[in-house]
């Protein structure tokens, strides 16, 4: 294998469940378990046996209905939640030989602060609404070890410029901004220390069409210019079609189909994917 084919992020057999599980649902007996919910003990199996790779410069789309485990996957990748079991390898951390899920909280924080950026669906989760926009960007830089105000300020201004936020508003709190602007501040924050991996969770949901277009345009441009790898979660197939190179389809916590985006959208194999693609038309 050539160097280029080593994945920047690799997930193996990741499981995330809410609840301890019982003898009934551990064996996945039918009847007692509806979708990914066990009626016996109330355990929710949010992510089941997820395995995938993300390569350099690639956009990996993840689609699925609500409740299919997309956001849980994203939270687990950003260590917002602990996984039940599974492995995660990141190219920039210990040469990609150590399972990050098993590392200490400090090491996870290092990976999160140095190697990843995340844009949440809800800006309240990703931004400090009481701190200035430039402060929000600086937070990420400070946690990556920067202690120079001048360099952080100029980097912040440069990024806000890139996401079309007027520089004269950079000292304003994001709470004063529109939803689309908040989302763009989040993107600027996520990009601030040039992370090789960007996690985007439903970035365009809830934005009006013209703002959606400008945010998507921005992401596409960033991906092309900076050659970063992106995991993109969306239930909007239009967004997936426009941005994603490869796509995973999730249902009830499992990956039911994966392949090139065109292939999945033009020739879906799984009945659920067929229904999904069909309902788009």
């Amino acid at each position, binding site marked *: 294998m050539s160097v280029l084919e080593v994945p920047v992020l690799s997930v193996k057999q990741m499981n995330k469940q809410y609840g301890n599980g019982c003898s009934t649902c551990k064996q996945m007996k039918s009847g007692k378990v509806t979708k990914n919910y066990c009626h016996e003990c109330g355990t929710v199996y949010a992510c089941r046996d997820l395995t995938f790779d993300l390569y350099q410069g690639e956009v990996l789309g993840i689609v699925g209905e609500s409740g299919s485990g997309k956001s849980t996957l994203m939270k687990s990748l950003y260590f917002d939640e602990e996984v039940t079991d599974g492995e995660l390898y990141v190219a920039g951390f210990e040469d990609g030989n150590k399972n990050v899920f098993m590392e200490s909280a*400090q090491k996870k924080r290092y990976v999160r602060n140095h190697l990843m950026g995340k844009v949440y669906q809800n800006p309240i989760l990703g931004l400090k609404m009481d701190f200035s926009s430039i402060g929000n960007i*600086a937070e990420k830089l400070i946690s990556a070890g920067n*202690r120079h105000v001048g360099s952080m300020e100029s980097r912040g201004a440069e990024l806000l410029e890139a996401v079309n936020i007027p520089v004269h508003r950079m*000292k304003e709190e994001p709470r004063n901004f529109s939803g689309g602007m908040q989302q763009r501040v989040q993107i600027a924050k996520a990009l601030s220390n040039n992370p090789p991996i960007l996690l985007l969770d439903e970035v365009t949901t809830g934005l009006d069409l013209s703002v959606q277009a400008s945010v998507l345009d921005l992401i596409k441009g960033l991906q092309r210019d900076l050659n970063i790898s992106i995991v993109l979660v969306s239930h909007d197939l239009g967004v997936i079609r426009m941005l994603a190179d490869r796509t995973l389809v999730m249902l009830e916590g499992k990956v039911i189909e994966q392949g090139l985006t065109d292939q999945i959208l033009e020739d879906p194999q799984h009945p659920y994917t067929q229904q999904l693609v069909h309902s788009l038309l």
Partner: protein
Amino acid sequence: MNKTYNFAFFDEGSKREIRRATLKAIAIPGYQVPFASREMPIGRGWGTGGLQLTLSLIGKDDVLKVIDQGSDESVNAVNIKKLVSDTTGVRTTDSTKGASLIQSRHRVPEVPLQRDQILILQVPLPEPLRNFEPSEHETKKLHAEREYSGAWLMLFEQIMKYGIMATDADHPVMVHDRYVMAPSPIPRFDNSKLDNNEALILLGAGREKKVYAIPPYTNISSLAFDDYGFEIESFANHACILCGSNDVFLDELVDEESGETYFQCNDTSNCLEMVNQKQSLGVK
């Protein structure tokens, strides 16, 4: 001395519990140790944390000094002194050198402390990350993981808004390169006095139920950026109107008749000592 109370107001079990928390605090410099803050005859937020530390530590041979923002004679300082001496019978003093226990609100005395002295600071808000993260559960995790970007971020915000680090008092410090700590609302002028101090410095927050400590000879550095250094209050070209000192922390006051501003020592006992020294020189 009032004998209807146990020595030093508390029962022995209470004193022991507070001392145990204090020992833990000394063992982990800068770490906030929770303790069972007692109901006191003064209101929470009026120095109960410091008072509980004082009462748990005081012995019959101690000499107590209490200062309230530099003053030995303010109502709060006088009443705390009264309470302690009523229930213990220990001597009180205004002299920093003559005291073995010094309870202070928001000042470190100007006279350098010595190795057999204990300075007890009253703390209103012990958590330096509180404005950044409201949840105690989360801040405990941040301390555990030595994740202090929040403390720096708050300073960054001040620089963005005001052009300087605008902490007048309670400028956060790093304790021995491990814990970020709120030094209680002492002026920035006093932060440097904490570094490598010979005395034991204890900090008690009664309302927030926390005790923490700076053992003698602990490295204390004030948080700062590479290009925005830590600066203390400047009193250049000003001196105390009473004693003429210009290397101490000064209060800016207004003469109500003439409307002019003048400066005066904040540490009253030190000021008095300086004045007395000068006068005795003058007589000769």
